[in-house]
Protein backbone atom coordinates (compact mmCIF):
# COMPACT_ATOMS: atom_id res chain seq x y z
CA UNK A 1 0.00 0.00 0.00
CA UNK A 2 1.40 3.37 -0.92
CA UNK A 3 2.02 5.78 1.89
CA UNK A 4 -0.20 8.50 0.47
CA UNK A 5 -3.23 6.26 0.32
CA UNK A 6 -2.58 4.98 3.83
CA UNK A 7 -2.69 8.42 5.35
CA UNK A 8 -6.23 9.68 5.50
CA UNK A 9 -6.12 13.37 4.61
CA UNK A 10 -6.77 15.51 7.64
CA UNK A 11 -6.72 12.56 10.03
CA UNK A 12 -3.61 13.67 11.85
CA UNK A 13 -3.60 17.35 11.18
CA UNK A 14 -1.79 18.53 14.29
CA UNK A 15 1.49 16.63 13.95
CA UNK A 16 1.50 16.38 10.18
CA UNK A 17 0.91 20.10 9.99
CA UNK A 18 3.71 20.67 12.47
CA UNK A 19 6.11 18.66 10.34
CA UNK A 20 5.15 20.70 7.28
CA UNK A 21 5.36 23.97 9.13
CA UNK A 22 8.82 23.08 10.36
CA UNK A 23 9.93 22.18 6.88
CA UNK A 24 8.59 25.51 5.63
CA UNK A 25 10.22 27.60 8.35
CA UNK A 26 13.59 25.87 8.13
CA UNK A 27 13.45 24.07 11.49
CA UNK A 28 14.50 20.52 10.71
CA UNK A 29 12.09 17.80 11.78
CA UNK A 30 13.45 15.24 14.24
CA UNK A 31 13.14 12.46 11.71
CA UNK A 32 12.73 12.60 7.92
CA UNK A 33 12.72 9.27 6.15
CA UNK A 34 12.07 8.65 2.47
CA UNK A 35 11.92 5.38 0.56
CA UNK A 36 13.78 3.47 3.25
CA UNK A 37 14.36 -0.22 2.57
CA UNK A 38 16.50 -2.74 4.40
CA UNK A 39 17.37 -6.37 3.68
CA UNK A 40 18.84 -9.10 5.83
CA UNK A 41 20.29 -11.22 3.05
CA UNK A 42 17.27 -12.43 1.11
CA UNK A 43 14.71 -11.22 3.62
CA UNK A 44 13.31 -7.74 3.15
CA UNK A 45 12.74 -6.21 6.58
CA UNK A 46 11.73 -2.70 5.47
CA UNK A 47 10.11 -1.92 2.18
CA UNK A 48 9.96 1.68 0.99
CA UNK A 49 9.07 3.36 4.29
CA UNK A 50 8.58 7.16 4.26
CA UNK A 51 7.48 9.43 7.10
CA UNK A 52 8.50 12.41 9.22
CA UNK A 53 8.42 13.11 12.95
CA UNK A 54 8.18 16.64 14.34
CA UNK A 55 10.40 17.94 17.13
CA UNK A 56 8.84 17.38 20.52
CA UNK A 57 6.61 14.57 19.34
CA UNK A 58 6.15 11.22 21.08
CA UNK A 59 6.00 8.82 18.19
CA UNK A 60 5.27 5.10 18.43
CA UNK A 61 6.25 2.45 15.91
CA UNK A 62 3.64 -0.24 16.36
CA UNK A 63 3.71 -3.66 14.83
CA UNK A 64 4.07 -7.36 15.56
CA UNK A 65 7.49 -8.98 15.86
CA UNK A 66 9.00 -9.21 12.41
CA UNK A 67 7.02 -6.21 11.18
CA UNK A 68 10.18 -4.16 10.69
CA UNK A 69 10.03 -1.84 13.67
CA UNK A 70 13.23 -3.09 15.29
CA UNK A 71 15.07 -2.71 11.98
CA UNK A 72 13.82 0.86 11.78
CA UNK A 73 14.99 1.40 15.36
CA UNK A 74 18.45 0.04 14.49
CA UNK A 75 18.71 2.36 11.50
CA UNK A 76 17.60 5.48 13.39
CA UNK A 77 19.92 4.67 16.31
CA UNK A 78 22.90 4.31 13.88
CA UNK A 79 23.44 0.71 14.89
CA UNK A 80 23.24 -0.66 11.34
CA UNK A 81 24.40 1.08 8.15
CA UNK A 82 21.92 2.46 5.63
CA UNK A 83 21.14 0.44 2.54
CA UNK A 84 18.42 2.02 0.37
CA UNK A 85 16.57 5.29 0.69
CA UNK A 86 17.25 8.54 2.52
CA UNK A 87 17.10 9.46 6.17
CA UNK A 88 17.90 12.65 8.03
CA UNK A 89 17.77 12.47 11.80
CA UNK A 90 17.86 15.85 13.61
CA UNK A 91 19.00 17.21 10.26
CA UNK A 92 22.00 14.86 10.03
CA UNK A 93 22.36 12.53 7.10
CA UNK A 94 22.26 8.97 8.37
CA UNK A 95 24.76 7.94 5.71
CA UNK A 96 27.52 10.44 6.42
CA UNK A 97 26.99 12.31 9.71
CA UNK A 98 26.54 9.52 12.20
CA UNK A 99 29.20 10.62 14.72
CA UNK A 100 27.73 14.16 14.92
CA UNK A 101 24.24 12.71 15.22
CA UNK A 102 25.25 10.32 18.01
CA UNK A 103 26.18 13.24 20.27
CA UNK A 104 22.55 14.37 20.19
CA UNK A 105 20.93 10.97 20.23
CA UNK A 106 19.95 8.89 23.26
CA UNK A 107 19.31 5.18 22.75
CA UNK A 108 17.54 2.69 25.02
CA UNK A 109 17.85 -0.91 23.89
CA UNK A 110 15.38 -3.70 24.48
CA UNK A 111 18.12 -5.88 25.97
CA UNK A 112 20.03 -4.37 28.86
CA UNK A 113 23.19 -2.49 27.94
CA UNK A 114 24.21 -1.73 31.52
CA UNK A 115 27.16 -3.54 33.08
CA UNK A 116 25.88 -5.58 36.03
CA UNK A 117 29.35 -5.80 37.57
CA UNK A 118 29.57 -2.02 37.87
CA UNK A 119 27.62 0.16 40.26
CA UNK A 120 24.86 2.47 39.08
CA UNK A 121 27.16 5.49 39.44
CA UNK A 122 30.02 3.73 37.63
CA UNK A 123 27.74 2.85 34.73
CA UNK A 124 26.74 6.50 34.39
CA UNK A 125 30.32 7.74 34.66
CA UNK A 126 31.39 5.29 31.99
CA UNK A 127 28.59 6.38 29.70
CA UNK A 128 29.40 10.05 30.21
CA UNK A 129 33.06 9.59 29.31
CA UNK A 130 32.09 7.73 26.13
CA UNK A 131 30.31 10.95 25.16
CA UNK A 132 33.34 13.06 26.07
CA UNK A 133 31.88 14.30 29.37
CA UNK A 134 34.19 14.35 32.40
CA UNK A 135 35.04 16.23 35.57
CA UNK A 136 32.51 18.52 37.22
CA UNK A 137 30.01 18.36 34.34
CA UNK A 138 29.98 14.56 34.57
CA UNK A 139 29.41 14.70 38.33
CA UNK A 140 26.64 17.27 37.98
CA UNK A 141 24.86 15.36 35.19
CA UNK A 142 25.15 12.02 37.01
CA UNK A 143 23.78 13.47 40.24
CA UNK A 144 20.88 15.08 38.40
CA UNK A 145 19.98 11.91 36.49
CA UNK A 146 20.16 9.81 39.66
CA UNK A 147 17.82 12.27 41.40
CA UNK A 148 15.37 12.54 38.53
CA UNK A 149 15.05 8.80 38.19
CA UNK A 150 14.93 8.13 41.93
CA UNK A 151 18.20 6.19 41.91
CA UNK A 152 20.24 8.32 44.31
CA UNK A 153 19.94 5.86 47.19
CA UNK A 154 21.14 3.00 44.96
CA UNK A 155 24.05 4.84 43.31
CA UNK A 156 26.65 2.65 45.00
CA UNK A 157 24.90 -0.68 44.35
CA UNK A 158 26.02 -3.12 41.67
CA UNK A 159 23.49 -3.01 38.85
CA UNK A 160 23.11 -6.82 38.89
CA UNK A 161 21.54 -6.55 42.36
CA UNK A 162 18.73 -4.22 41.18
CA UNK A 163 15.19 -5.22 40.23
CA UNK A 164 14.10 -5.21 36.58
CA UNK A 165 12.30 -1.90 36.94
CA UNK A 166 15.29 -0.19 38.53
CA UNK A 167 17.64 -1.59 35.88
CA UNK A 168 15.36 -0.09 33.26
CA UNK A 169 15.64 3.27 34.98
CA UNK A 170 19.44 3.00 34.94
CA UNK A 171 19.21 2.37 31.18
CA UNK A 172 17.15 5.51 30.82
CA UNK A 173 19.47 7.56 33.04
CA UNK A 174 22.38 6.35 30.92
CA UNK A 175 20.73 7.33 27.66
CA UNK A 176 19.80 10.81 28.92
CA UNK A 177 23.11 11.68 30.55
CA UNK A 178 24.43 13.64 27.58
CA UNK A 179 21.17 15.61 27.17
CA UNK A 180 20.05 14.18 23.83
CA UNK A 181 17.53 16.01 21.65
CA UNK A 182 16.08 12.75 20.41
CA UNK A 183 15.49 9.64 22.49
CA UNK A 184 14.96 6.35 20.66
CA UNK A 185 13.69 3.36 22.62
CA UNK A 186 13.24 -0.25 21.50
CA UNK A 187 10.36 -1.95 23.35
CA UNK A 188 11.06 0.14 26.46
CA UNK A 189 8.61 -1.58 28.79
CA UNK A 190 9.82 -5.13 28.14
CA UNK A 191 9.84 -7.00 31.43
CA UNK A 192 8.15 -4.24 33.42
CA UNK A 193 5.05 -4.83 35.52
CA UNK A 194 2.06 -2.56 34.79
CA UNK A 195 2.88 -0.08 37.56
CA UNK A 196 6.50 0.27 36.55
CA UNK A 197 5.42 0.58 32.91
CA UNK A 198 3.07 3.45 33.76
CA UNK A 199 5.77 5.24 35.75
CA UNK A 200 8.21 4.81 32.89
CA UNK A 201 5.73 6.25 30.37
CA UNK A 202 4.91 9.13 32.72
CA UNK A 203 8.57 9.96 32.91
CA UNK A 204 8.83 10.02 29.11
CA UNK A 205 5.85 12.39 28.87
CA UNK A 206 7.43 14.65 31.47
CA UNK A 207 10.68 14.66 29.59
CA UNK A 208 8.96 15.80 26.43
CA UNK A 209 6.86 18.42 28.25
CA UNK A 210 9.69 19.94 30.27
CA UNK A 211 12.68 19.60 27.97
CA UNK A 212 11.13 19.23 24.55
CA UNK A 213 12.92 15.95 23.89
CA UNK A 214 11.54 14.11 20.85
CA UNK A 215 10.74 10.50 21.68
CA UNK A 216 10.52 7.62 19.24
CA UNK A 217 9.68 4.20 20.62
CA UNK A 218 8.92 0.82 19.13
CA UNK A 219 6.25 -1.21 20.81
CA UNK A 220 3.89 -4.10 20.44
CA UNK A 221 2.23 -3.04 23.63
CA UNK A 222 -1.13 -1.33 23.13
CA UNK A 223 -1.07 0.66 26.35
CA UNK A 224 2.26 2.13 25.37
CA UNK A 225 1.05 2.95 21.88
CA UNK A 226 -2.04 4.74 23.23
CA UNK A 227 0.23 7.18 25.07
CA UNK A 228 1.91 8.37 21.85
CA UNK A 229 0.98 11.52 19.94
CA UNK A 230 1.11 9.58 16.71
CA UNK A 231 1.61 6.00 15.74
CA UNK A 232 3.12 4.47 12.65
CA UNK A 233 1.77 0.97 12.07
CA UNK A 234 4.32 -1.37 10.46
CA UNK A 235 3.28 -4.59 8.84
CA UNK A 236 5.57 -6.84 6.81
CA UNK A 237 8.09 -4.07 6.34
CA UNK A 238 5.60 -1.45 5.18
CA UNK A 239 4.06 1.50 6.91
CA UNK A 240 0.34 0.79 6.63
CA UNK A 241 -0.93 3.79 8.62
CA UNK A 242 0.36 6.84 10.45
CA UNK A 243 -1.97 8.88 12.66
CA UNK A 244 -2.83 9.73 16.27
CA UNK A 245 -4.25 6.75 18.19
CA UNK A 246 -7.78 8.20 18.40
CA UNK A 247 -7.93 8.77 14.64
CA UNK A 248 -6.76 5.25 13.96
CA UNK A 249 -9.50 3.90 16.20
CA UNK A 250 -12.04 6.08 14.43
CA UNK A 251 -11.24 4.26 11.21
CA UNK A 252 -12.77 1.09 12.57
CA UNK A 253 -16.45 1.27 11.70
CA UNK A 254 -18.07 1.73 15.12
CA UNK A 255 -17.95 -1.04 17.72
CA UNK A 256 -16.13 -4.32 17.47
CA UNK A 257 -17.95 -7.60 18.07
CA UNK A 258 -15.99 -10.83 18.37
CA UNK A 259 -17.88 -14.09 18.09
CA UNK A 260 -16.43 -17.40 19.26
CA UNK A 261 -18.22 -20.28 17.56
CA UNK A 262 -17.78 -24.03 17.19
CA UNK A 263 -18.01 -23.79 13.39
CA UNK A 264 -16.95 -20.23 12.63
CA UNK A 265 -16.77 -20.58 8.83
CA UNK A 266 -20.36 -21.91 8.63
CA UNK A 267 -21.57 -19.16 10.90
CA UNK A 268 -19.78 -16.54 8.83
CA UNK A 269 -21.72 -17.64 5.74
CA UNK A 270 -25.01 -17.67 7.62
CA UNK A 271 -24.40 -14.16 8.95
CA UNK A 272 -23.57 -13.02 5.43
CA UNK A 273 -26.63 -14.54 3.77
CA UNK A 274 -29.23 -14.12 6.49
CA UNK A 275 -28.13 -10.85 8.13
CA UNK A 276 -26.34 -9.22 5.18
CA UNK A 277 -23.42 -8.45 7.47
CA UNK A 278 -19.77 -9.07 6.64
CA UNK A 279 -17.86 -10.90 9.33
CA UNK A 280 -14.14 -11.48 8.99
CA UNK A 281 -12.59 -14.69 10.23
CA UNK A 282 -9.30 -13.98 12.01
CA UNK A 283 -7.56 -16.84 13.80
CA UNK A 284 -10.82 -18.74 14.31
CA UNK A 285 -12.67 -15.73 15.69
CA UNK A 286 -15.40 -13.92 13.76
CA UNK A 287 -14.99 -10.16 13.86
CA UNK A 288 -17.70 -7.72 12.96
CA UNK A 289 -17.31 -3.94 12.93
CA UNK A 290 -20.68 -2.22 13.40
CA UNK A 291 -22.02 1.09 14.53
CA UNK A 292 -24.33 0.32 17.51
CA UNK A 293 -22.69 -3.04 18.19
CA UNK A 294 -25.12 -3.87 21.00
CA UNK A 295 -27.99 -4.18 18.52
CA UNK A 296 -26.00 -6.56 16.39
CA UNK A 297 -25.07 -8.64 19.44
CA UNK A 298 -28.76 -9.02 20.35
CA UNK A 299 -29.72 -9.97 16.79
CA UNK A 300 -26.93 -12.44 16.24
CA UNK A 301 -27.58 -14.18 19.57
CA UNK A 302 -31.34 -14.32 18.78
CA UNK A 303 -30.71 -15.96 15.43
CA UNK A 304 -27.69 -18.20 16.05
CA UNK A 305 -27.54 -18.55 19.83
CA UNK A 306 -27.08 -22.33 19.63
CA UNK A 307 -23.98 -22.08 17.48
CA UNK A 308 -22.24 -19.40 19.49
CA UNK A 309 -19.96 -20.10 22.44
CA UNK A 310 -19.43 -16.50 23.47
CA UNK A 311 -19.61 -12.96 22.19
CA UNK A 312 -17.55 -9.98 23.24
CA UNK A 313 -18.34 -6.43 22.37
CA UNK A 314 -16.36 -3.24 22.85
CA UNK A 315 -15.03 0.03 21.58
CA UNK A 316 -12.19 -0.48 19.12
CA UNK A 317 -8.71 -0.85 20.54
CA UNK A 318 -5.48 -0.42 18.63
CA UNK A 319 -5.45 -4.17 18.29
CA UNK A 320 -8.73 -3.87 16.38
CA UNK A 321 -7.14 -1.16 14.28
CA UNK A 322 -4.34 -3.53 13.41
CA UNK A 323 -6.78 -6.27 12.39
CA UNK A 324 -8.80 -3.72 10.45
CA UNK A 325 -5.71 -2.55 8.56
CA UNK A 326 -4.04 -5.87 7.91
CA UNK A 327 -6.71 -8.56 8.28
CA UNK A 328 -4.35 -10.29 10.67
CA UNK A 329 -4.25 -10.63 14.39
CA UNK A 330 -1.64 -8.87 16.34
CA UNK A 331 0.44 -11.58 17.94
CA UNK A 332 1.40 -10.82 21.48
CA UNK A 333 5.11 -10.88 22.18
CA UNK A 334 6.70 -12.56 25.19
CA UNK A 335 6.40 -9.40 27.31
CA UNK A 336 2.67 -9.34 26.89
CA UNK A 337 2.17 -13.00 27.68
CA UNK A 338 4.14 -12.66 30.90
Amino acid at each position, binding site marked *: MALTSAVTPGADLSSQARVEEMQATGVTPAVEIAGLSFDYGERRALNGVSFAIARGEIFGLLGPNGGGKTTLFKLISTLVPMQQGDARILGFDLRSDTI*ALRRRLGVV*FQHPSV*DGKLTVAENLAHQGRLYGI*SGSRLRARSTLMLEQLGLSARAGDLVETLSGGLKRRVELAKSLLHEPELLVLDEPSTGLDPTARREFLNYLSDLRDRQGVTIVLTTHHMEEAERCDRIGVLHEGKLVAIAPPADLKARVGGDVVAIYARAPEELREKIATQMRVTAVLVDGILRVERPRGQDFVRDVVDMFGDEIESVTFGKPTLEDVFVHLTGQRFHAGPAEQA
Partner: protein
Amino acid sequence: MSEAGLQAGTLWLREITRFCRQRSRVIGSFLQPLVFWVLLGAGLKASFKPAGMPAGMDYFQYLYPGFIVLVLLFTAIFATISTVEDRREGFLQSVLVAPISRATIVMGQALGGTTLAWVPSCIFLILAPLAGIHLSVGAAIFAALIMLIIAFALTCIGLTIAWKIESTQGFHAIMNLILIPVWLLSGAFWPIDGAPVLLRWTMRLNPLTYGMAALRESLYTGNRGEMGSLPSIALSVAIAIVFAVVTFALAARTARRAAAY
Protein backbone atom coordinates in the same frame (compact mmCIF):
# COMPACT_ATOMS: atom_id res chain seq x y z
CA MET B 1 42.75 14.63 27.82
CA SER B 2 41.58 14.18 24.24
CA GLU B 3 38.14 12.75 23.73
CA ALA B 4 39.49 9.51 22.22
CA GLY B 5 41.81 9.21 25.21
CA LEU B 6 38.89 9.68 27.61
CA GLN B 7 36.84 7.11 25.70
CA ALA B 8 39.60 4.48 25.51
CA GLY B 9 40.44 5.24 29.16
CA THR B 10 36.92 4.54 30.38
CA LEU B 11 36.81 1.23 28.49
CA TRP B 12 40.16 0.35 30.06
CA LEU B 13 38.96 1.29 33.54
CA ARG B 14 35.83 -0.79 33.14
CA GLU B 15 37.86 -3.90 32.20
CA ILE B 16 40.05 -3.46 35.26
CA THR B 17 37.10 -2.82 37.60
CA ARG B 18 35.23 -5.89 36.35
CA PHE B 19 38.32 -8.04 36.63
CA CYS B 20 39.00 -7.03 40.21
CA ARG B 21 35.42 -8.01 41.10
CA GLN B 22 35.88 -11.54 39.73
CA ARG B 23 38.78 -12.71 41.81
CA SER B 24 38.72 -16.31 40.59
CA ARG B 25 39.80 -15.01 37.19
CA VAL B 26 42.85 -13.27 38.66
CA ILE B 27 43.97 -16.31 40.57
CA GLY B 28 43.19 -18.82 37.80
CA SER B 29 45.09 -17.02 35.10
CA PHE B 30 48.20 -16.83 37.23
CA LEU B 31 48.12 -20.19 39.02
CA GLN B 32 47.60 -22.45 36.02
CA PRO B 33 50.90 -21.64 34.26
CA LEU B 34 52.68 -21.63 37.61
CA VAL B 35 51.57 -25.18 38.33
CA PHE B 36 52.51 -26.30 34.79
CA TRP B 37 55.91 -24.72 35.08
CA VAL B 38 56.69 -26.22 38.47
CA LEU B 39 55.49 -29.71 37.51
CA LEU B 40 56.97 -29.81 34.01
CA GLY B 41 60.17 -28.04 34.95
CA ALA B 42 60.76 -30.09 38.09
CA GLY B 43 59.88 -33.36 36.35
CA LEU B 44 61.95 -32.78 33.25
CA LYS B 45 64.85 -30.97 34.85
CA ALA B 46 66.78 -34.08 35.82
CA SER B 47 66.30 -36.22 32.72
CA PHE B 48 65.63 -33.81 29.89
CA LYS B 49 68.05 -31.55 28.12
CA PRO B 50 66.85 -30.47 24.68
CA ALA B 51 69.34 -30.11 21.88
CA GLY B 52 70.54 -26.58 21.35
CA MET B 53 70.00 -25.46 24.93
CA PRO B 54 72.74 -23.16 26.16
CA ALA B 55 75.40 -24.70 28.37
CA GLY B 56 75.07 -24.25 32.10
CA MET B 57 71.27 -23.95 31.97
CA ASP B 58 68.75 -26.46 33.28
CA TYR B 59 65.32 -27.04 31.77
CA PHE B 60 63.57 -25.36 34.68
CA GLN B 61 65.39 -22.17 33.76
CA TYR B 62 64.81 -22.64 30.06
CA LEU B 63 61.05 -22.98 30.52
CA TYR B 64 60.77 -19.93 32.77
CA PRO B 65 60.39 -17.17 30.10
CA GLY B 66 58.16 -19.51 28.11
CA PHE B 67 55.79 -19.72 31.04
CA ILE B 68 55.82 -15.98 31.52
CA VAL B 69 54.53 -15.78 27.95
CA LEU B 70 51.97 -18.48 28.78
CA VAL B 71 50.68 -16.32 31.65
CA LEU B 72 50.36 -13.47 29.16
CA LEU B 73 48.58 -15.77 26.73
CA PHE B 74 46.03 -17.14 29.21
CA THR B 75 45.16 -13.78 30.69
CA ALA B 76 44.94 -12.17 27.26
CA ILE B 77 42.51 -14.92 26.21
CA PHE B 78 40.40 -14.42 29.32
CA ALA B 79 40.38 -10.68 28.83
CA THR B 80 39.20 -10.92 25.24
CA ILE B 81 36.48 -13.41 26.15
CA SER B 82 34.81 -10.52 27.92
CA THR B 83 34.47 -8.85 24.52
CA VAL B 84 32.46 -11.83 23.25
CA GLU B 85 30.33 -11.63 26.40
CA ASP B 86 29.87 -7.87 26.01
CA ARG B 87 28.47 -8.38 22.55
CA ARG B 88 26.22 -11.25 23.62
CA GLU B 89 24.95 -9.62 26.80
CA GLY B 90 24.32 -6.27 25.18
CA PHE B 91 26.81 -3.99 26.89
CA LEU B 92 28.58 -3.28 23.61
CA GLN B 93 25.36 -1.96 21.99
CA SER B 94 25.54 1.30 23.90
CA VAL B 95 29.24 1.66 23.08
CA LEU B 96 28.51 1.17 19.38
CA VAL B 97 25.96 4.02 19.27
CA ALA B 98 28.23 6.42 21.21
CA PRO B 99 30.30 8.99 19.27
CA ILE B 100 33.41 6.79 19.33
CA SER B 101 35.35 5.19 16.49
CA ARG B 102 35.76 1.44 16.33
CA ALA B 103 39.55 1.83 16.49
CA THR B 104 39.17 3.70 19.80
CA ILE B 105 36.91 0.95 21.15
CA VAL B 106 39.53 -1.64 20.21
CA MET B 107 42.30 0.48 21.77
CA GLY B 108 40.39 0.65 25.05
CA GLN B 109 39.75 -3.09 25.02
CA ALA B 110 43.36 -3.85 24.05
CA LEU B 111 44.78 -1.66 26.82
CA GLY B 112 42.44 -3.32 29.32
CA GLY B 113 43.43 -6.82 28.20
CA THR B 114 47.10 -5.88 28.12
CA THR B 115 47.00 -4.59 31.69
CA LEU B 116 45.16 -7.67 32.91
CA ALA B 117 47.71 -9.95 31.24
CA TRP B 118 50.72 -7.94 32.23
CA VAL B 119 50.18 -7.57 35.98
CA PRO B 120 50.10 -11.32 36.79
CA SER B 121 53.09 -11.91 34.52
CA CYS B 122 55.01 -9.32 36.53
CA ILE B 123 54.22 -11.30 39.67
CA PHE B 124 55.64 -14.31 37.84
CA LEU B 125 58.73 -12.24 37.13
CA ILE B 126 59.32 -11.83 40.87
CA LEU B 127 59.72 -15.63 41.02
CA ALA B 128 62.85 -15.47 38.83
CA PRO B 129 65.22 -16.43 41.69
CA LEU B 130 63.30 -19.73 42.00
CA ALA B 131 64.51 -20.53 38.49
CA GLY B 132 68.03 -19.58 39.49
CA ILE B 133 67.85 -16.30 37.56
CA HIS B 134 69.04 -13.27 39.43
CA LEU B 135 67.73 -10.12 37.82
CA SER B 136 69.12 -6.63 38.17
CA VAL B 137 66.52 -3.88 38.51
CA GLY B 138 67.37 -2.70 35.00
CA ALA B 139 66.97 -6.18 33.53
CA ALA B 140 63.63 -6.63 35.31
CA ILE B 141 62.30 -3.33 33.93
CA PHE B 142 63.49 -4.21 30.44
CA ALA B 143 61.85 -7.64 30.69
CA ALA B 144 58.62 -6.05 31.95
CA LEU B 145 58.57 -3.66 28.97
CA ILE B 146 58.97 -6.51 26.52
CA MET B 147 56.20 -8.40 28.32
CA LEU B 148 53.99 -5.34 27.83
CA ILE B 149 54.56 -5.41 24.07
CA ILE B 150 53.89 -9.16 23.87
CA ALA B 151 50.76 -8.78 26.00
CA PHE B 152 49.41 -6.09 23.70
CA ALA B 153 50.00 -8.18 20.58
CA LEU B 154 48.41 -11.30 22.09
CA THR B 155 45.40 -9.30 23.30
CA CYS B 156 44.94 -7.86 19.82
CA ILE B 157 44.97 -11.34 18.29
CA GLY B 158 42.32 -12.33 20.85
CA LEU B 159 40.24 -9.23 19.99
CA THR B 160 40.45 -9.93 16.26
CA ILE B 161 38.87 -13.31 16.90
CA ALA B 162 36.45 -12.00 19.54
CA TRP B 163 34.99 -9.42 17.14
CA LYS B 164 34.38 -12.13 14.56
CA ILE B 165 32.87 -14.81 16.72
CA GLU B 166 29.54 -14.97 18.48
CA SER B 167 29.92 -17.67 21.11
CA THR B 168 32.49 -18.21 23.82
CA GLN B 169 32.67 -21.91 22.89
CA GLY B 170 33.77 -21.06 19.36
CA PHE B 171 36.21 -18.61 20.84
CA HIS B 172 37.87 -21.26 23.02
CA ALA B 173 38.20 -23.65 20.10
CA ILE B 174 39.85 -21.09 17.84
CA MET B 175 42.11 -19.76 20.55
CA ASN B 176 43.38 -23.25 21.31
CA LEU B 177 43.84 -23.95 17.63
CA ILE B 178 45.80 -20.77 16.94
CA LEU B 179 47.39 -19.40 20.06
CA ILE B 180 48.62 -22.53 21.80
CA PRO B 181 50.55 -23.72 18.67
CA VAL B 182 51.92 -20.20 18.19
CA TRP B 183 53.15 -20.35 21.75
CA LEU B 184 54.60 -23.87 21.37
CA LEU B 185 56.46 -22.80 18.23
CA SER B 186 57.91 -19.64 19.74
CA GLY B 187 60.87 -21.30 21.40
CA ALA B 188 59.03 -21.56 24.71
CA PHE B 189 59.58 -25.31 25.01
CA TRP B 190 62.69 -26.00 22.98
CA PRO B 191 65.43 -23.91 21.37
CA ILE B 192 65.27 -23.23 17.65
CA ASP B 193 68.71 -24.70 17.08
CA GLY B 194 67.79 -28.19 18.18
CA ALA B 195 64.63 -28.48 16.07
CA PRO B 196 64.31 -30.27 12.69
CA VAL B 197 64.78 -27.98 9.68
CA LEU B 198 61.11 -27.59 8.77
CA LEU B 199 60.16 -26.78 12.36
CA ARG B 200 63.11 -24.43 12.61
CA TRP B 201 61.78 -22.39 9.70
CA THR B 202 58.25 -22.38 11.06
CA MET B 203 59.65 -21.04 14.31
CA ARG B 204 61.65 -18.36 12.51
CA LEU B 205 58.48 -17.21 10.71
CA ASN B 206 56.50 -17.11 13.93
CA PRO B 207 56.39 -13.48 15.09
CA LEU B 208 56.04 -14.53 18.72
CA THR B 209 59.48 -16.21 18.49
CA TYR B 210 61.04 -12.75 18.47
CA GLY B 211 59.07 -11.49 21.46
CA MET B 212 60.09 -14.65 23.26
CA ALA B 213 63.72 -14.19 22.23
CA ALA B 214 63.72 -10.57 23.38
CA LEU B 215 62.32 -11.64 26.75
CA ARG B 216 64.83 -14.46 27.05
CA GLU B 217 67.69 -12.12 26.34
CA SER B 218 66.43 -9.47 28.74
CA LEU B 219 66.33 -12.06 31.53
CA TYR B 220 69.85 -13.25 30.91
CA THR B 221 71.51 -9.88 30.25
CA GLY B 222 75.15 -10.18 31.06
CA ASN B 223 75.16 -13.85 30.08
CA ARG B 224 74.53 -13.35 26.42
CA GLY B 225 77.30 -15.76 25.59
CA GLU B 226 75.14 -18.59 26.87
CA MET B 227 72.26 -17.80 24.58
CA GLY B 228 73.21 -19.79 21.51
CA SER B 229 72.01 -18.41 18.19
CA LEU B 230 69.04 -16.26 19.24
CA PRO B 231 68.24 -13.39 16.87
CA SER B 232 69.88 -10.14 17.98
CA ILE B 233 68.11 -8.17 20.67
CA ALA B 234 67.53 -5.19 18.38
CA LEU B 235 65.87 -7.34 15.72
CA SER B 236 63.80 -9.19 18.33
CA VAL B 237 62.47 -6.01 19.92
CA ALA B 238 61.80 -4.40 16.53
CA ILE B 239 59.81 -7.39 15.28
CA ALA B 240 57.92 -7.61 18.57
CA ILE B 241 56.85 -3.97 18.18
CA VAL B 242 55.87 -4.42 14.53
CA PHE B 243 53.91 -7.52 15.56
CA ALA B 244 51.98 -5.46 18.14
CA VAL B 245 51.19 -2.69 15.65
CA VAL B 246 50.06 -5.12 12.94
CA THR B 247 47.84 -7.12 15.28
CA PHE B 248 46.22 -3.90 16.52
CA ALA B 249 45.52 -2.77 12.96
CA LEU B 250 44.02 -6.19 12.26
CA ALA B 251 41.76 -6.03 15.33
CA ALA B 252 40.63 -2.47 14.50
CA ARG B 253 39.84 -3.47 10.92
CA THR B 254 37.85 -6.50 12.06
CA ALA B 255 35.89 -4.34 14.50
CA ARG B 256 35.14 -1.76 11.81
CA ARG B 257 33.70 -4.45 9.58
CA ALA B 258 31.79 -6.30 12.29
CA ALA B 259 28.04 -6.00 12.05
CA ALA B 260 26.20 -4.54 15.01
CA TYR B 261 23.26 -6.53 16.22
